[in-house]
């Protein structure tokens, strides 16, 4: 019986194989590996904590219940990001949210809703001053990302936050490689425009 510690050193494909064989610990390992990346991608796409959580949950339930139909010639990460991105895009189509508010989602009315939907940076640095600066800069970047078109946003997040290769992004988003490169280029141009004031600071 493999433990979570044993699984940590295995590749995604091997963990998937164990999950297919009915090992619950392998399911939990996949969840543990992709919980934050998938949630972060969806959250940055939809900018609503509750909705992001529902969509992330929907993504994982779909993926984990369909492991038998997963084809190993594709990267597991591409597969899961594809489903997560589709869920986020579908949600955005249903309910278009245009602007990001660091103080909470635009539809948040009560204090609890504002608190729940506010962007919160969880990874704090050791130096308090650097941490404040980094948080301010991070928040500015988050705002600039939020202004991008959803397609550009997904591409730039997968490229720079997740560090995925262009080919993998194309596979994940079901787009031609050339389109991915164009989207990333345009996203960079828009970010450069939005963040031009940084070079003066």
């Amino acid at each position: 019986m493999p433990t979570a510690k044993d699984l940590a050193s295995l590749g995604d494909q091997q963990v998937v194989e164990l999950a297919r064989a009915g090992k619950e610990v392998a399911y939990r390992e996949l969840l543990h590996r992709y919980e934050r990346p998938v949630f972060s991608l969806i959250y940055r796409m939809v900018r609503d904590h509750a909705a992001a959580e529902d969509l992330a949950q929907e993504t994982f339930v779909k993926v984990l219940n369909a492991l038998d139909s997963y084809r190993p010639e594709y990267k597991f990460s591409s597969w899961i990001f594809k489903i997560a991105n589709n869920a986020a895009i579908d949600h955005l189509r249903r309910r278009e949210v245009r602007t990001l508010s660091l103080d909470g989602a635009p539809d948040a009315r009560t204090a609890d809703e504002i608190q729940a939907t506010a962007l919160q940076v969880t990874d704090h640095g050791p130096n308090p001053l650097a941490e404040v600066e980094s948080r301010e800069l991070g928040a500015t970047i988050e705002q600039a990302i939020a202004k991008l078109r959803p397609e550009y946003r997904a591409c730039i997040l997968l490229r720079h936050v997740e560090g995925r290769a262009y080919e993998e992004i194309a596979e994940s988003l079901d787009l031609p490689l050339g389109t991915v490169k164009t989207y990333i280029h345009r996203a960079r141009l828009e970010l450069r425009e939005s963040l031009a004031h940084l070079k003066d600071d």
Partner: protein
Amino acid sequence: MDKYLEQDELDRLIARELSRLPYYAPSRGFQGRVMAQVSLPEPRALVVLQRTRAWVLQPRRALALAGAYVACAAIALGFAVPWVLQHVPSISYGTGLMAAKVLGAARELGMALAGWVLTSRSYEAVRSLPILQEHLAGITVLLTVAYAAAAVALYRLLKSPRGKSVPVSSAL
């Protein structure tokens, strides 16, 4: 020049800050909520055990019928196997004779078909076509290409309606 340097510096700053963006975490209990909706496949050994248990728990009449069926098969095999072993030479002779007859019939049928084709009017019409020997190579190439194109078209026709094999959409 300074403008380009500034732009380059800004690009690097953006790329660096993007890669430093933190991950957000879902609320506590997320894993539990997901796992509650996931149906785990049962291990093979457990499936076999469950099937055996279900079989054993069948009503007595069904078990009696299954037992009688197995007994009949065992008795029949008890007679059949020694008989086959005793008559192996004649069985193999008979099988060989039968195979030779089938082959002979197939050969005769083939010959009849060839004769019918060679004496048909269509064959004469094809033979009398004014095709020069130097055109033969070109015609052969043309026919090969057309046949390959037809194969490709057929393959595309038989593929999924989206025309691509995408694991996610097919899986979900």
